[in-house]
């Protein structure tokens, strides 16, 4: 094993790690924000909206993320330049970079998977609690904010922690569309130094540590949440 490349690429690796963490946090945030309405309309929304949400979840969960990513980056990316006037618009610098496409694709993916989780979570909150909240004089939005959503999140918190790990494990795909995140930097090192294993092993080790940290942090929060009352 030869590790003499490590000091040379140390800063680049740190940069890659930073991009990876950014991707995880941003995409988990966007995805979660979209997942709540996606789950909610399937439980309580009008039929047509529920069907759209269900279709969205089915498509996202039924196709590989790699294909979604390429479809969005290469597919949409090749259509945008043909739209007249778009090169002069303020969006053009963003449409030319790879990063926004990755954020978009990963956020959609998180939204699809977590949306399905949230549908089950919302459906799992006992009806009596919602009726009680309503009887207390809360409006529909207050019921959602103070009772329905917290109770739903409480029930599926371990699953959400698992989804966060899955999001981390999905980020290396971004390297296939030229983003220099952790895995991308590793690939770069392999090409520069002709070392086959060492960079991969190092990257794998970093992912193991990151997964461990996510699991521990989420477990800490899980223990601080009051246990859901058994029905």
């Amino acid at each position, binding site marked *: 094993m030869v590790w003499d490349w490590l000091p040379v690429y140390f800063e680049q690796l740190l940069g890659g790690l930073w991009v990876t963490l950014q991707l995880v946090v941003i995409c988990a945030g966007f995805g979660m924000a979209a997942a709540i309405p996606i789950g909610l309309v399937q439980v309580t929304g009008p039929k047509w909206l529920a069907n759209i949400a269900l279709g969205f979840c*089915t*498509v996202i*969960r*039924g*196709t*590989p*993320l*790699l*294909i*979604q990513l*390429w*479809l969005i980056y*290469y*597919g*949409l*990316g*090749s*259509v945008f330049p043909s739209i007249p006037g778009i090169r002069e618009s303020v969006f053009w610098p963003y449409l030319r970079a790879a990063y926004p496409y990755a954020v978009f694709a990963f956020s959609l*993916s998180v939204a699809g*998977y977590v949306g399905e989780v949230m549908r089950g979570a919302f459906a799992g909150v006992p009806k009596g609690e919602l009726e009680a909240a309503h009887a207390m004089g809360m409006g529909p939005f207050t019921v959602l904010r103070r009772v329905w959503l917290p109770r739903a999140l409480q029930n599926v918190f*371990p*699953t959400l922690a*698992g989804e966060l*790990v*899955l999001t*981390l*494990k*999905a*980020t*290396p*795909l971004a*390297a*296939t569309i030229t983003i220099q995140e952790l*895995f991308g930097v*590793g690939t770069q090192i392999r090409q520069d130094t002709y070392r*086959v*294993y060492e960079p*991969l*092993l190092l*990257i*794998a080790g970093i*992912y*193991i540590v990151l*997964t*461990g940290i996510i699991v521990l942090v989420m477990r800490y929060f899980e223990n601080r949440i009051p246990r859901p009352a058994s029905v």
Partner: protein
Amino acid sequence: MWDSLHLLAFSPPGWGGVLLKGLFVTVFVALGAYGVGLLIGFAGAVGKIHGGPVLRTILEIYTTLIRAVPELVLILLLFYSGQSLINSIMDGLGSGRVDINPIAAGIGVLGFVQGAYTTEVIRAAMLAVPKGQVEAAFAYGMSRGKMLWRIMVPSMIPFAIPGLANLWLIVTKDTALLAVVGSSELATVTRQAAGSTRNYLLFFIAAAVLYLMLSLVSTYLIRKLERRYRPVSRTSKLNAQTAGGR
């Protein structure tokens, strides 16, 4: 995009036939990897429950590490290390180096990854079988092997089906990752088709539709299977969290 639909025709210059062949390879690789995963998973689960401390520790490391590292990294790592391992064995035997069939390599690599998840699913299912059944089997004088085959396997199936079904859906999608090492499955040929015709949107949508169809047909068949092996008790939710992958 619509005026280039003729590119999906089955015979050249259309790429439809190539894509369908890629889908066929994808299904083949997925089936193979799933089979390998089941074998590893069954052996791993038995080892984790009945094995000694050394075996249990090794299996624990295997399942933990595999499930913590991104599949893409694992595929590259296993692909290259497997290749050089086989070649050094061949060198040791005195025969020449071999070029490994990319389909076989894909099956091996994905199967090894699947094995870690399958181990956890089957282990949980085995633990869900009431202890009394196992004890009764031993009390009848069955050997451990006979107990596993006659009692454990049939009674754990209802508990294992949801988790195993989930793993099938995951492995069909994970085959797409083989595109990074170059294979002949759907994702790889789609990228070739898209690259050489410059019709990215059309071909990636076509591939997505094919993958979606595979998932939907699988889901339909799984539902039928689940209805057949409905669990006796309602404790089968335990598999829900062991599976992963996008």
